[in-house]
Protein backbone atom coordinates (compact mmCIF):
# COMPACT_ATOMS: atom_id res chain seq x y z
CA UNK A 1 0.00 0.00 0.00
CA UNK A 2 1.37 3.42 -0.90
CA UNK A 3 1.50 5.94 1.89
CA UNK A 4 1.21 9.69 1.46
CA UNK A 5 3.88 11.97 2.87
CA UNK A 6 2.37 14.07 5.62
CA UNK A 7 4.54 15.71 8.26
CA UNK A 8 1.50 16.55 10.37
CA UNK A 9 1.31 12.85 11.21
CA UNK A 10 3.87 13.71 13.89
CA UNK A 11 1.01 15.24 15.89
CA UNK A 12 -0.68 11.83 16.00
CA UNK A 13 2.46 10.25 17.35
CA UNK A 14 3.13 12.97 19.91
CA UNK A 15 1.15 11.54 22.88
CA UNK A 16 2.89 8.19 22.50
CA UNK A 17 6.20 9.94 22.20
CA UNK A 18 5.74 12.00 25.36
CA UNK A 19 4.61 9.06 27.48
CA UNK A 20 7.26 6.66 26.31
CA UNK A 21 9.98 9.30 26.52
CA UNK A 22 9.01 10.02 30.14
CA UNK A 23 9.24 6.32 30.92
CA UNK A 24 12.23 5.40 28.83
CA UNK A 25 14.38 8.46 28.39
CA UNK A 26 14.58 9.76 31.97
CA UNK A 27 15.34 6.35 33.55
CA UNK A 28 17.82 5.54 30.82
CA UNK A 29 19.63 8.82 31.49
CA UNK A 30 19.68 7.97 35.21
CA UNK A 31 21.34 4.68 34.36
CA UNK A 32 23.87 6.38 32.06
CA UNK A 33 24.55 8.88 34.83
CA UNK A 34 25.29 6.16 37.41
CA UNK A 35 27.37 4.17 34.97
CA UNK A 36 30.09 6.82 34.72
CA UNK A 37 30.32 7.74 38.39
CA UNK A 38 31.80 6.32 41.56
CA UNK A 39 30.18 6.76 44.97
CA UNK A 40 31.13 5.82 48.51
CA UNK A 41 27.57 5.67 49.68
CA UNK A 42 27.37 9.17 51.18
CA UNK A 43 25.57 10.68 48.19
CA UNK A 44 28.73 12.23 46.78
CA UNK A 45 29.64 11.13 43.27
CA UNK A 46 32.92 11.20 41.38
CA UNK A 47 33.59 10.91 37.68
CA UNK A 48 34.67 7.37 36.91
CA UNK A 49 34.83 7.45 33.14
CA UNK A 50 34.49 4.08 31.51
CA UNK A 51 35.93 2.20 34.49
CA UNK A 52 32.72 0.29 35.25
CA UNK A 53 32.25 -0.73 31.64
CA UNK A 54 35.77 -2.14 31.54
CA UNK A 55 35.20 -3.89 34.85
CA UNK A 56 31.98 -5.50 33.68
CA UNK A 57 33.31 -6.50 30.28
CA UNK A 58 36.30 -8.18 31.90
CA UNK A 59 34.46 -9.77 34.80
CA UNK A 60 34.19 -13.57 34.66
CA UNK A 61 30.93 -13.26 36.60
CA UNK A 62 29.31 -11.30 33.76
CA UNK A 63 30.70 -13.69 31.16
CA UNK A 64 29.24 -16.66 33.04
CA UNK A 65 25.85 -15.02 33.40
CA UNK A 66 25.83 -14.07 29.71
CA UNK A 67 26.80 -17.59 28.72
CA UNK A 68 24.02 -19.06 30.88
CA UNK A 69 21.60 -16.54 29.37
CA UNK A 70 22.54 -17.46 25.79
CA UNK A 71 22.34 -21.18 26.61
CA UNK A 72 18.90 -20.70 28.12
CA UNK A 73 17.53 -18.54 25.30
CA UNK A 74 18.77 -20.76 22.48
CA UNK A 75 17.68 -23.96 24.23
CA UNK A 76 14.11 -22.76 24.73
CA UNK A 77 13.96 -21.39 21.16
CA UNK A 78 15.19 -24.75 19.82
CA UNK A 79 12.45 -26.56 21.75
CA UNK A 80 9.52 -24.14 21.66
CA UNK A 81 9.53 -23.19 17.96
CA UNK A 82 9.49 -26.75 16.46
CA UNK A 83 7.18 -28.04 19.20
CA UNK A 84 4.80 -25.12 18.71
CA UNK A 85 4.71 -25.67 14.94
CA UNK A 86 4.10 -29.41 15.41
CA UNK A 87 1.18 -28.78 17.75
CA UNK A 88 -0.30 -26.12 15.47
CA UNK A 89 -0.10 -28.53 12.51
CA UNK A 90 -1.93 -31.28 14.37
CA UNK A 91 -4.59 -29.06 15.92
CA UNK A 92 -8.12 -29.29 14.48
CA UNK A 93 -8.96 -26.50 12.00
CA UNK A 94 -12.71 -26.46 12.56
CA UNK A 95 -15.30 -27.88 14.91
CA UNK A 96 -16.07 -27.65 18.60
CA UNK A 97 -12.53 -28.52 19.68
CA UNK A 98 -11.01 -25.38 18.16
CA UNK A 99 -12.12 -22.89 20.86
CA UNK A 100 -11.43 -25.49 23.56
CA UNK A 101 -7.85 -25.93 22.36
CA UNK A 102 -7.26 -22.20 21.88
CA UNK A 103 -8.66 -21.15 25.24
CA UNK A 104 -6.85 -23.82 27.29
CA UNK A 105 -3.60 -23.16 25.47
CA UNK A 106 -3.76 -19.43 26.10
CA UNK A 107 -4.20 -20.05 29.83
CA UNK A 108 -0.50 -20.15 30.89
CA UNK A 109 0.11 -16.87 29.08
CA UNK A 110 -2.18 -15.01 31.50
CA UNK A 111 -0.78 -16.31 34.75
CA UNK A 112 1.34 -13.74 36.63
CA UNK A 113 4.99 -14.63 36.21
CA UNK A 114 5.73 -15.15 39.87
CA UNK A 115 2.72 -17.48 40.10
CA UNK A 116 4.21 -19.44 37.18
CA UNK A 117 7.37 -19.79 39.26
CA UNK A 118 5.37 -20.75 42.34
CA UNK A 119 3.29 -23.32 40.40
CA UNK A 120 6.42 -25.03 39.13
CA UNK A 121 8.08 -24.81 42.50
CA UNK A 122 5.31 -26.75 44.26
CA UNK A 123 4.89 -29.02 41.23
CA UNK A 124 8.56 -30.04 41.11
CA UNK A 125 9.54 -30.12 44.79
CA UNK A 126 10.88 -33.61 45.54
CA UNK A 127 8.88 -34.03 48.77
CA UNK A 128 5.47 -32.49 48.05
CA UNK A 129 5.46 -31.99 44.27
CA UNK A 130 3.84 -34.31 41.75
CA UNK A 131 6.74 -34.12 39.28
CA UNK A 132 9.36 -34.58 42.00
CA UNK A 133 7.57 -37.56 43.50
CA UNK A 134 6.99 -39.23 40.14
CA UNK A 135 10.59 -38.77 38.96
CA UNK A 136 12.00 -40.05 42.24
CA UNK A 137 9.49 -42.89 42.20
CA UNK A 138 10.76 -43.88 38.76
CA UNK A 139 14.24 -44.15 40.21
CA UNK A 140 15.72 -40.81 39.16
CA UNK A 141 17.63 -38.92 41.79
CA UNK A 142 15.88 -35.58 41.25
CA UNK A 143 16.09 -32.53 43.47
CA UNK A 144 16.11 -29.19 41.68
CA UNK A 145 17.02 -27.25 44.81
CA UNK A 146 20.33 -29.13 45.12
CA UNK A 147 21.37 -30.32 41.65
CA UNK A 148 22.28 -27.79 38.92
CA UNK A 149 21.28 -30.25 36.20
CA UNK A 150 17.86 -30.82 37.70
CA UNK A 151 17.44 -27.06 38.21
CA UNK A 152 18.13 -26.46 34.52
CA UNK A 153 15.76 -29.22 33.49
CA UNK A 154 12.99 -27.72 35.64
CA UNK A 155 13.71 -24.20 34.37
CA UNK A 156 13.51 -25.27 30.72
CA UNK A 157 10.39 -27.36 31.33
CA UNK A 158 8.75 -24.37 33.02
CA UNK A 159 9.52 -22.04 30.14
CA UNK A 160 8.32 -24.58 27.56
CA UNK A 161 5.12 -24.97 29.59
CA UNK A 162 4.72 -21.21 29.89
CA UNK A 163 5.43 -20.01 26.35
CA UNK A 164 5.04 -22.79 23.75
CA UNK A 165 1.36 -21.79 23.53
CA UNK A 166 2.39 -18.42 22.13
CA UNK A 167 4.21 -20.14 19.27
CA UNK A 168 1.25 -22.49 18.76
CA UNK A 169 -1.22 -19.62 18.54
CA UNK A 170 0.97 -17.68 16.12
CA UNK A 171 1.67 -20.67 13.88
CA UNK A 172 -2.00 -21.63 14.00
CA UNK A 173 -3.00 -18.13 12.89
CA UNK A 174 -0.72 -18.53 9.88
CA UNK A 175 -2.16 -21.95 9.06
CA UNK A 176 -5.85 -21.04 9.19
CA UNK A 177 -5.21 -18.18 6.75
CA UNK A 178 -4.32 -20.70 4.00
CA UNK A 179 -7.28 -21.03 1.61
CA UNK A 180 -8.70 -24.56 1.12
CA UNK A 181 -8.04 -24.26 -2.61
CA UNK A 182 -4.30 -24.56 -1.93
CA UNK A 183 -4.78 -27.95 -0.29
CA UNK A 184 -7.12 -29.14 -3.03
CA UNK A 185 -4.62 -28.19 -5.68
CA UNK A 186 -1.91 -30.04 -3.76
CA UNK A 187 -4.15 -33.10 -3.54
CA UNK A 188 -4.76 -33.10 -7.28
CA UNK A 189 -1.02 -32.88 -7.86
CA UNK A 190 -0.57 -35.80 -5.47
CA UNK A 191 1.75 -33.85 -3.19
CA UNK A 192 3.16 -35.67 -0.17
CA UNK A 193 2.54 -34.48 3.38
CA UNK A 194 6.09 -33.17 3.54
CA UNK A 195 5.70 -31.28 0.26
CA UNK A 196 2.51 -29.62 1.55
CA UNK A 197 4.35 -28.58 4.70
CA UNK A 198 7.46 -27.39 2.87
CA UNK A 199 5.86 -25.49 -0.01
CA UNK A 200 2.46 -24.37 1.31
CA UNK A 201 2.34 -24.30 5.09
CA UNK A 202 5.86 -23.20 5.98
CA UNK A 203 5.97 -20.18 3.61
CA UNK A 204 2.58 -19.07 4.94
CA UNK A 205 3.84 -19.34 8.53
CA UNK A 206 7.15 -17.61 7.85
CA UNK A 207 5.98 -14.16 8.83
CA UNK A 208 4.21 -15.15 12.03
CA UNK A 209 7.08 -17.42 13.00
CA UNK A 210 9.47 -14.49 12.71
CA UNK A 211 7.26 -12.60 15.15
CA UNK A 212 7.29 -15.66 17.41
CA UNK A 213 11.07 -15.91 17.34
CA UNK A 214 11.43 -12.17 17.94
CA UNK A 215 9.01 -12.10 20.88
CA UNK A 216 10.40 -15.27 22.43
CA UNK A 217 13.93 -14.03 22.01
CA UNK A 218 13.26 -10.65 23.63
CA UNK A 219 11.21 -12.03 26.48
CA UNK A 220 13.46 -14.97 27.30
CA UNK A 221 16.49 -12.69 27.32
CA UNK A 222 14.77 -10.45 29.85
CA UNK A 223 13.37 -13.23 32.01
CA UNK A 224 13.59 -12.54 35.72
CA UNK A 225 10.59 -13.36 37.88
CA UNK A 226 9.97 -17.01 37.00
CA UNK A 227 13.51 -18.33 37.61
CA UNK A 228 13.84 -16.06 40.62
CA UNK A 229 10.80 -17.63 42.28
CA UNK A 230 11.62 -21.16 41.10
CA UNK A 231 15.32 -21.45 41.95
CA UNK A 232 16.43 -18.00 43.13
CA UNK A 233 19.32 -18.38 40.69
CA UNK A 234 20.62 -21.44 42.52
CA UNK A 235 21.80 -23.95 43.46
CA UNK A 236 24.96 -21.85 43.76
CA UNK A 237 24.93 -19.59 40.72
CA UNK A 238 23.95 -22.32 38.30
CA UNK A 239 20.70 -20.70 37.10
CA UNK A 240 21.68 -17.05 37.66
CA UNK A 241 20.60 -15.51 34.36
CA UNK A 242 21.48 -11.94 33.39
CA UNK A 243 18.50 -10.18 34.97
CA UNK A 244 18.85 -12.09 38.23
CA UNK A 245 22.53 -11.22 38.40
CA UNK A 246 21.77 -7.59 37.61
CA UNK A 247 19.18 -7.27 40.39
CA UNK A 248 21.62 -8.93 42.81
CA UNK A 249 24.25 -6.32 42.01
CA UNK A 250 21.87 -3.34 41.89
CA UNK A 251 19.46 -3.94 44.74
CA UNK A 252 21.30 -6.58 46.75
CA UNK A 253 24.73 -5.02 46.98
CA UNK A 254 23.71 -1.48 45.91
CA UNK A 255 26.72 -1.25 43.60
CA UNK A 256 25.03 1.32 41.43
CA UNK A 257 27.96 2.05 39.13
CA UNK A 258 28.71 -1.52 38.05
CA UNK A 259 24.99 -2.32 37.96
CA UNK A 260 24.31 0.62 35.66
CA UNK A 261 27.20 -0.27 33.36
CA UNK A 262 25.98 -3.85 33.29
CA UNK A 263 22.43 -2.65 32.50
CA UNK A 264 23.62 -0.69 29.51
CA UNK A 265 25.76 -3.51 28.13
CA UNK A 266 22.88 -5.92 28.68
CA UNK A 267 20.40 -3.62 26.96
CA UNK A 268 22.77 -3.09 24.03
CA UNK A 269 23.14 -6.85 23.54
CA UNK A 270 19.34 -7.34 23.48
CA UNK A 271 18.99 -4.35 21.17
CA UNK A 272 21.63 -5.53 18.74
CA UNK A 273 20.28 -9.08 18.48
CA UNK A 274 16.68 -7.86 18.24
CA UNK A 275 17.65 -5.40 15.53
CA UNK A 276 19.03 -8.29 13.49
CA UNK A 277 15.74 -10.19 13.88
CA UNK A 278 13.69 -7.07 13.19
CA UNK A 279 15.58 -6.26 9.99
CA UNK A 280 15.10 -9.82 8.76
CA UNK A 281 11.41 -9.63 9.61
CA UNK A 282 10.83 -6.32 7.82
CA UNK A 283 12.67 -7.64 4.76
CA UNK A 284 10.17 -10.52 4.73
CA UNK A 285 7.25 -8.12 4.95
CA UNK A 286 8.49 -5.98 2.10
CA UNK A 287 9.01 -8.86 -0.29
Amino acid sequence: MTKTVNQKAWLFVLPVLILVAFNAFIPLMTVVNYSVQETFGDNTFFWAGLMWFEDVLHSPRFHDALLRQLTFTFTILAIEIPLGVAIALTMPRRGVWVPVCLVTMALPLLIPWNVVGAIWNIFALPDIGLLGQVLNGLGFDYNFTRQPGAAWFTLIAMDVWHWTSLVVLLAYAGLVSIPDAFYQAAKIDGASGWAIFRYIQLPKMKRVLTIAVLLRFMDSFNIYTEPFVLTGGGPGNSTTLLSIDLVKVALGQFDLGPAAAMSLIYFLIVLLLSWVFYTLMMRNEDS
Partner: protein
Amino acid sequence: MNRPALSYLRPLVPALYIAFMLLPIYWLLNMSFKTTNEILGDFTLWPRAFTLENYVTIFTDPTWYMGYVNALIYVSLNTVISVTVALPAAYAFSRYRFLGDKHLFFWLLTNRMAPAAVFALPFFQLYSAVGLFDTHLAVALAHTLFNIPLAVWILEGFMSGVPRQLDETAYVDGYSFPRFFGRIFLPTIAAGIGVACFFCFMFSWVELLLAKTLTAVAAKPIAATMTRTASTSGYELGLLAAAGTLTIVPGAFVIYFVRNYIAKGFALGRV
Protein backbone atom coordinates in the same frame (compact mmCIF):
# COMPACT_ATOMS: atom_id res chain seq x y z
CA MET B 1 -2.10 -39.27 2.36
CA ASN B 2 -3.33 -42.86 2.70
CA ARG B 3 -2.04 -43.38 6.18
CA PRO B 4 -5.20 -43.81 8.26
CA ALA B 5 -3.31 -45.22 11.25
CA LEU B 6 -1.23 -42.07 11.44
CA SER B 7 -4.15 -39.72 11.07
CA TYR B 8 -5.84 -41.33 14.09
CA LEU B 9 -2.76 -40.41 16.09
CA ARG B 10 -2.83 -36.78 14.99
CA PRO B 11 -5.07 -35.38 17.75
CA LEU B 12 -2.78 -37.07 20.25
CA VAL B 13 -0.15 -34.33 19.90
CA PRO B 14 -2.32 -31.40 21.04
CA ALA B 15 -4.07 -33.66 23.56
CA LEU B 16 -0.78 -34.67 25.18
CA TYR B 17 0.39 -31.08 25.21
CA ILE B 18 -2.80 -29.87 26.86
CA ALA B 19 -2.44 -32.62 29.47
CA PHE B 20 1.14 -31.50 30.16
CA MET B 21 -0.18 -27.96 30.46
CA LEU B 22 -2.97 -28.76 32.85
CA LEU B 23 -0.98 -31.00 35.21
CA PRO B 24 0.87 -28.23 37.10
CA ILE B 25 -2.36 -26.21 37.25
CA TYR B 26 -4.19 -29.23 38.67
CA TRP B 27 -1.47 -29.59 41.29
CA LEU B 28 -1.93 -25.96 42.31
CA LEU B 29 -5.69 -26.38 42.52
CA ASN B 30 -5.28 -29.60 44.46
CA MET B 31 -3.00 -27.93 46.98
CA SER B 32 -5.30 -24.96 47.44
CA PHE B 33 -8.00 -27.28 48.89
CA LYS B 34 -5.66 -28.97 51.35
CA THR B 35 -4.77 -28.09 54.92
CA THR B 36 -1.16 -27.22 55.68
CA ASN B 37 -0.87 -30.46 57.64
CA GLU B 38 -1.94 -32.55 54.69
CA ILE B 39 0.40 -30.74 52.30
CA LEU B 40 3.44 -31.26 54.50
CA GLY B 41 2.35 -34.56 56.04
CA ASP B 42 1.25 -36.94 53.28
CA PHE B 43 1.63 -37.08 49.55
CA THR B 44 -1.96 -37.24 48.24
CA LEU B 45 -3.17 -36.97 44.67
CA TRP B 46 -6.40 -35.27 45.71
CA PRO B 47 -7.39 -33.50 48.94
CA ARG B 48 -8.41 -36.04 51.62
CA ALA B 49 -9.45 -33.43 54.13
CA PHE B 50 -11.10 -31.04 51.66
CA THR B 51 -11.10 -27.46 52.99
CA LEU B 52 -12.16 -24.06 51.70
CA GLU B 53 -10.39 -22.32 54.55
CA ASN B 54 -7.61 -20.95 52.32
CA TYR B 55 -10.15 -19.24 50.06
CA VAL B 56 -12.12 -17.93 53.06
CA THR B 57 -8.95 -16.32 54.41
CA ILE B 58 -8.30 -14.56 51.09
CA PHE B 59 -11.84 -13.26 50.71
CA THR B 60 -12.10 -11.97 54.28
CA ASP B 61 -8.65 -10.50 54.84
CA PRO B 62 -8.30 -7.05 53.17
CA THR B 63 -4.50 -7.39 52.82
CA TRP B 64 -5.27 -10.32 50.53
CA TYR B 65 -8.32 -9.33 48.54
CA MET B 66 -7.21 -5.71 48.13
CA GLY B 67 -4.26 -7.13 46.20
CA TYR B 68 -6.66 -8.26 43.48
CA VAL B 69 -8.52 -4.95 43.52
CA ASN B 70 -5.25 -2.99 43.23
CA ALA B 71 -3.97 -5.12 40.39
CA LEU B 72 -7.27 -4.85 38.49
CA ILE B 73 -7.32 -1.06 38.94
CA TYR B 74 -3.85 -0.43 37.54
CA VAL B 75 -4.26 -3.02 34.79
CA SER B 76 -7.50 -1.37 33.58
CA LEU B 77 -5.97 2.08 33.86
CA ASN B 78 -2.96 0.94 31.86
CA THR B 79 -5.10 -0.67 29.16
CA VAL B 80 -7.15 2.51 28.70
CA ILE B 81 -4.11 4.80 28.58
CA SER B 82 -2.06 2.55 26.29
CA VAL B 83 -4.78 1.91 23.71
CA THR B 84 -6.03 5.51 23.68
CA VAL B 85 -2.65 7.03 22.87
CA ALA B 86 -1.67 4.16 20.58
CA LEU B 87 -4.71 4.59 18.28
CA PRO B 88 -3.72 7.87 16.57
CA ALA B 89 -0.06 6.85 16.48
CA ALA B 90 -0.87 3.53 14.82
CA TYR B 91 -3.05 5.38 12.30
CA ALA B 92 -0.17 7.71 11.47
CA PHE B 93 2.23 4.79 11.00
CA SER B 94 -0.20 2.84 8.83
CA ARG B 95 -1.33 5.72 6.58
CA TYR B 96 1.41 8.35 6.33
CA ARG B 97 5.07 8.68 5.69
CA PHE B 98 6.79 11.33 7.74
CA LEU B 99 10.27 12.36 8.77
CA GLY B 100 11.89 9.58 10.81
CA ASP B 101 8.85 7.30 10.84
CA LYS B 102 10.80 4.06 10.48
CA HIS B 103 13.36 5.02 13.13
CA LEU B 104 10.58 6.10 15.46
CA PHE B 105 8.79 2.79 15.02
CA PHE B 106 11.93 0.83 15.82
CA TRP B 107 12.71 3.09 18.79
CA LEU B 108 9.23 2.35 20.14
CA LEU B 109 9.87 -1.36 19.75
CA THR B 110 13.19 -1.09 21.59
CA ASN B 111 11.22 -0.21 24.69
CA ARG B 112 9.49 -3.54 24.40
CA MET B 113 12.97 -5.08 24.50
CA ALA B 114 14.23 -3.26 27.57
CA PRO B 115 14.80 -5.66 30.45
CA ALA B 116 12.52 -4.62 33.34
CA ALA B 117 15.39 -5.32 35.72
CA VAL B 118 17.34 -2.47 34.11
CA PHE B 119 14.55 -0.01 34.84
CA ALA B 120 13.55 -1.12 38.33
CA LEU B 121 15.78 1.23 40.31
CA PRO B 122 15.51 4.33 38.07
CA PHE B 123 11.73 3.90 37.97
CA PHE B 124 11.61 3.86 41.74
CA GLN B 125 13.56 7.12 41.85
CA LEU B 126 11.60 8.76 39.03
CA TYR B 127 8.16 7.96 40.42
CA SER B 128 9.22 8.90 43.95
CA ALA B 129 10.50 12.23 42.61
CA VAL B 130 7.20 13.09 40.91
CA GLY B 131 5.23 11.98 43.98
CA LEU B 132 3.46 9.06 42.38
CA PHE B 133 5.13 6.27 44.36
CA ASP B 134 2.67 3.68 45.69
CA THR B 135 -0.22 4.85 43.50
CA HIS B 136 -2.12 2.86 40.89
CA LEU B 137 -1.28 5.51 38.32
CA ALA B 138 2.46 4.92 38.82
CA VAL B 139 2.23 1.24 37.92
CA ALA B 140 -0.19 1.95 35.07
CA LEU B 141 2.20 4.53 33.60
CA ALA B 142 5.26 2.35 34.13
CA HIS B 143 3.62 -0.52 32.28
CA THR B 144 2.93 1.73 29.28
CA LEU B 145 6.69 1.38 28.64
CA PHE B 146 6.15 -2.03 27.08
CA ASN B 147 2.39 -1.91 26.37
CA ILE B 148 2.28 1.23 24.19
CA PRO B 149 4.84 -0.15 21.71
CA LEU B 150 2.95 -3.43 21.59
CA ALA B 151 -0.43 -1.72 21.16
CA VAL B 152 0.95 0.47 18.36
CA TRP B 153 2.42 -2.61 16.69
CA ILE B 154 -0.83 -4.61 16.88
CA LEU B 155 -3.10 -1.73 15.84
CA GLU B 156 -0.81 -0.77 12.97
CA GLY B 157 -1.08 -4.36 11.73
CA PHE B 158 -4.87 -4.32 11.81
CA MET B 159 -5.13 -0.79 10.33
CA SER B 160 -2.84 -1.65 7.42
CA GLY B 161 -5.32 -4.40 6.56
CA VAL B 162 -8.03 -1.76 5.98
CA PRO B 163 -7.87 -0.40 2.41
CA ARG B 164 -7.14 3.31 2.01
CA GLN B 165 -10.22 3.64 -0.20
CA LEU B 166 -12.30 3.60 2.96
CA ASP B 167 -10.65 6.82 4.16
CA GLU B 168 -10.85 8.49 0.76
CA THR B 169 -14.51 7.62 0.20
CA ALA B 170 -15.38 9.05 3.60
CA TYR B 171 -13.64 12.36 2.81
CA VAL B 172 -15.40 12.54 -0.55
CA ASP B 173 -18.67 12.01 1.29
CA GLY B 174 -17.81 15.07 3.38
CA TYR B 175 -16.77 13.45 6.64
CA SER B 176 -14.38 15.46 8.78
CA PHE B 177 -11.38 13.56 10.11
CA PRO B 178 -12.58 13.17 13.73
CA ARG B 179 -16.02 12.07 12.56
CA PHE B 180 -14.53 9.59 10.09
CA PHE B 181 -12.14 8.23 12.73
CA GLY B 182 -14.79 7.80 15.41
CA ARG B 183 -17.80 6.76 13.31
CA ILE B 184 -16.27 4.68 10.53
CA PHE B 185 -12.67 3.77 11.19
CA LEU B 186 -12.79 2.66 14.82
CA PRO B 187 -15.78 0.32 14.30
CA THR B 188 -13.97 -1.19 11.29
CA ILE B 189 -10.96 -2.18 13.39
CA ALA B 190 -12.98 -3.06 16.51
CA ALA B 191 -11.47 -6.55 16.55
CA GLY B 192 -7.98 -5.07 16.49
CA ILE B 193 -8.82 -2.76 19.40
CA GLY B 194 -10.14 -5.73 21.34
CA VAL B 195 -6.97 -7.67 20.68
CA ALA B 196 -4.78 -4.70 21.66
CA CYS B 197 -6.75 -4.33 24.92
CA PHE B 198 -6.32 -8.04 25.56
CA PHE B 199 -2.56 -7.83 25.13
CA CYS B 200 -2.22 -4.74 27.32
CA PHE B 201 -4.31 -6.45 29.98
CA MET B 202 -2.24 -9.59 29.69
CA PHE B 203 1.22 -8.04 29.95
CA SER B 204 0.23 -5.63 32.71
CA TRP B 205 -1.45 -8.41 34.68
CA VAL B 206 1.50 -10.81 34.54
CA GLU B 207 4.30 -8.29 35.20
CA LEU B 208 5.54 -8.17 38.76
CA LEU B 209 9.03 -6.69 39.02
CA LEU B 210 8.02 -3.08 38.25
CA ALA B 211 4.65 -3.37 39.99
CA LYS B 212 6.40 -4.54 43.14
CA THR B 213 9.12 -1.90 42.96
CA LEU B 214 6.63 0.95 42.58
CA THR B 215 4.22 0.01 45.36
CA ALA B 216 4.40 -0.35 49.12
CA VAL B 217 0.96 -0.66 50.70
CA ALA B 218 -1.79 1.32 49.00
CA ALA B 219 -1.43 -0.07 45.49
CA LYS B 220 0.29 -3.38 46.16
CA PRO B 221 -0.79 -6.06 43.65
CA ILE B 222 -1.80 -9.58 44.65
CA ALA B 223 1.27 -11.11 43.07
CA ALA B 224 3.51 -9.04 45.37
CA THR B 225 1.38 -9.91 48.40
CA MET B 226 2.09 -13.54 47.61
CA THR B 227 5.87 -13.13 47.66
CA ARG B 228 5.64 -11.35 51.00
CA THR B 229 3.59 -14.17 52.51
CA ALA B 230 6.01 -16.77 51.26
CA SER B 231 8.89 -15.09 53.02
CA THR B 232 7.43 -13.80 56.28
CA SER B 233 4.96 -16.33 57.58
CA GLY B 234 6.99 -19.33 56.51
CA TYR B 235 5.27 -21.98 54.48
CA GLU B 236 1.58 -21.37 54.18
CA LEU B 237 1.49 -23.29 50.95
CA GLY B 238 -2.26 -23.87 50.90
CA LEU B 239 -2.93 -20.16 51.15
CA LEU B 240 -0.32 -19.43 48.50
CA ALA B 241 -1.88 -22.03 46.19
CA ALA B 242 -5.35 -20.57 46.67
CA ALA B 243 -4.07 -17.06 45.93
CA GLY B 244 -2.29 -18.41 42.85
CA THR B 245 -5.42 -20.18 41.64
CA LEU B 246 -7.40 -16.96 41.95
CA THR B 247 -4.86 -15.06 39.83
CA ILE B 248 -5.67 -17.40 36.94
CA VAL B 249 -9.38 -16.51 37.03
CA PRO B 250 -9.29 -12.97 35.52
CA GLY B 251 -7.05 -14.20 32.71
CA ALA B 252 -9.34 -17.12 31.91
CA PHE B 253 -12.29 -14.73 31.91
CA VAL B 254 -10.61 -12.34 29.47
CA ILE B 255 -9.51 -15.16 27.15
CA TYR B 256 -13.08 -16.37 26.95
CA PHE B 257 -14.18 -12.96 25.63
CA VAL B 258 -11.59 -12.78 22.88
CA ARG B 259 -11.59 -16.49 21.97
CA ASN B 260 -12.69 -15.86 18.38
CA TYR B 261 -9.95 -13.33 17.70
CA ILE B 262 -7.22 -14.97 19.69
CA ALA B 263 -5.40 -16.63 16.78
CA LYS B 264 -5.39 -13.55 14.54
CA GLY B 265 -4.63 -11.38 17.54
CA PHE B 266 -1.52 -13.29 18.48
CA ALA B 267 -0.28 -12.80 14.94
CA LEU B 268 -0.60 -9.04 15.64
CA GLY B 269 -3.04 -8.73 12.77
CA ARG B 270 -0.36 -9.74 10.29
CA VAL B 271 -1.71 -12.80 8.54
